[in-house]
């Protein structure tokens, strides 16, 4: 996955290097510009068992700022924001690998360096007793929940 490009970023972004669980890393540029998820919209995506994106809906494309073809085939962590503690995603993977549903508040990184908050749910797609992928649905959280999550995640970084 390529580093973020200055030309994609709106405003001056701070540069952060993210280290992912698979050993890869990426330099991202982060701004303080929030794009709220519009009311009534759900962001839907599916991945294969290793977390590679196989399907995104229109809301995913719009909110992430990426083109659909930039998203399909890349790891879902393309959305990972440096303000999210890695332990939160560790908990996600432990939960879904145990065949259970995971919920959590997540700050996602946009292609333009901005961010959006979601309440995410991830479930394993089980077919004939085998996990064939994961479905993730993200919806609009309340401001109060976002503030609580922000404060909590700060203590984990």
């Amino acid at each position, binding site marked *: 996955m390529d580093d973020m490009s200055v030309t994609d970023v709106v405003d001056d972004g701070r540069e952060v290097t993210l280290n992912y669980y698979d050993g890869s890393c990426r330099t991202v540029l982060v701004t303080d510009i929030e794009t709220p998820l519009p009311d*009534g919209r759900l962001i839907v995506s599916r991945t294969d068992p290793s977390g590679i994106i196989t399907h995104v809906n229109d809301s995913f494309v719009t909110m992430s700022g990426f083109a659909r073809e930039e998203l399909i085939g890349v790891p879902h962590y393309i959305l990972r924001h440096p303000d999210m503690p890695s332990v939160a995603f560790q908990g996600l993977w432990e939960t879904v690998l145990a065949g259970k549903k995971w919920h959590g508040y997540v700050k996602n990184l946009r292609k333009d360096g901005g961010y959006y908050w979601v309440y995410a749910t991830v479930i394993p797609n089980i077919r004939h007793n085998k996990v064939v992928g994961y479905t993730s649905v993200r919806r609009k959280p309340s401001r109060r929940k976002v503030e609580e999550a922000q404060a909590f995640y700060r203590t984990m970084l």
Partner: protein
Amino acid sequence: MTYNFTVSPDFNPSYLSGWFIFNTWLQRRTSEAFHLELYDDFDSQRQAIAADKFDLIYANPYDASVLVREKGFLPVACPAQKSDEAVIAVPHDSEVGQVEDLSPGLRVSATRDPDVSMMCMIMLEPADLNRDNIVPKTCDSYVLVAKDLVRGQADAGFFLEETYNKLSRVVRSQLRPLVQSRIQVIHHVLLVGPGLLHRHEDIQQALLAMNDTPAGQGLLESLDFTGWEKVAPEDTEFMIDLMDTLET
């Protein structure tokens, strides 16, 4: 042998006769006998489903989940370009401008339609509202939900979007949509049960060809459909997974 057919009770009553015409058409096209049984409420229909009474069901997404995963039903087709979306409406003169303006104690009128309730409760989450801090009232129809809003007996009402759009102009002029879902991937689906699986392909082909003749087009119109789209088992499994993620 007569097969039993039923339709999710959330269909618009204006299209009641359309489902009887559809049943007659299906019998002619398959040379099988079908008995159409309609229900006024979800609970009675669910009891009949639990008792394995039906072989063919036009199911809402919520019931499709049980039918596919627990009862061995297979998807045949869904209405073309028709996803299930929901609307939360308020009285036209309500001071509420956005979801975040709503507060605990909100009086909500809704039908027993499980999909609509689920979608609308999700749309209330940005205001920190949930089933424990609203005052719900269950109505027998969407018209009665609208009446509650018009009479000031509810602060918000839950509607299936297509039903909301078909309320009379006079009623709609007294209401205002506060928020509308754009989920795009949840829809009703026609399912065949284990006893009718041997006719799955025939029924599917007949439905997909319905748009090819003037008679078929007339029938689609009587159901308020533009056509049928083939649904593969994995398409329905995906929808069911998605429904699972939405259940809190």
